[in-house]
């Protein structure tokens, strides 16, 4: 493993935020910065663009990113290594079961069955993969803005 140790990969963990760039996703890295006078750690956010050609990461996913040996472009400095906790689809690392906040999904299903499952209730097994309503009703993958100028061109992401 000597060669692996020689290639120092600076890893960071961050949350995916909306990004309009193609082939890249923007990540928010939460760091703690010490205030010298109060001696207290405050949160400081850094934004990093990581290379993601297939756009695997959706807004809200917690992702592990790795620094590239050479920058791909002026802004794209990292690449996506692995999605640690996808939004809404977190797996408990000890049991391997799917989780929703503090409960296991099979536990919730059992409770629902005992009380009577609603037909309109969300079914994890039958629900389509995340992103099927993108550009139709789901605009969380881009930064939307209030339309400030009407120039005749199509502005799909203006509110």
């Amino acid at each position, binding site marked *: *493993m000597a060669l*692996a*140790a020689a290639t*120092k*990969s*600076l*890893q*960071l*963990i961050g949350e995916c935020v909306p990004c309009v760039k193609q082939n890249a996703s923007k990540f928010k*890295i*939460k*760091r*703690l910065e*010490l205030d010298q006078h*109060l*001696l*207290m*750690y405050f949160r400081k956010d850094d934004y990093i663009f990581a290379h993601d050609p297939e756009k695997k990461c959706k807004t809200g996913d*917690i992702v*592990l990113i790795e620094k590239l040996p050479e920058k791909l472009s002026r802004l794209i400095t990292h690449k996506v*290594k692995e999605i640690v*906790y996808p939004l809404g689809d*977190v797996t*408990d*690392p*000890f049991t391997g079961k799917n*989780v929703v*906040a*503090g*409960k*296991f999904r099979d536990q919730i299903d059992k409770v629902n069955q005992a009380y009577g499952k609603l037909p309109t209730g969300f079914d994890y097994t039958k629900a389509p993969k995340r992103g099927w309503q993108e550009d139709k009703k789901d605009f969380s993958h881009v930064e939307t803005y209030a339309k400030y100028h009407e120039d005749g061109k199509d502005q799909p992401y203006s509110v």
Partner: protein
Amino acid sequence: MPFMKGNAPIRRTLQFLEAGKLVLKDQIQIFAVNYNVYGDHHKGARDFVFWHLPQVQYKNPHVQIATFKNLTPSPFIKCFYENGHQMLIDVDSKSKEEIYDHLVDVVGKTKEVLRAEAIAREKKDNPANFGAHCDKHCICEIPGQVPCPGICPLPNHMRGKFINAKE
């Protein structure tokens, strides 16, 4: 403690921060703690984050420390190593002291390593030391000393090959 407002302001004293025992190994780049804000079995993790997280970040300024709340039903700590390995530490129903001691044993540098590092740092601080791990590699770099014989040769009366050469 003047100007010490807030909940448990002793956490904000330099003495408390310097007294941190956990110095993470060099290989670790990310230290992530997952816990819930409710639940008795998460209390130890919550207390650990409240009391000891500033100490850990103070002793390891280059490690990214992240906290994730209310993701999974059981609390855990995940350490991400340089070579891609991940270490998962279960902290379910443990007290903050137990978690801290366990972390020092598993992912912290040992006391011997810390002692050796302290000595190495002292050696580096002393400007009278030369060589590896010091500021200057050789005394020839200092203005006023004999220049490096590799760059400008010494006068013949100082060179062994001339002193010892038989006429």
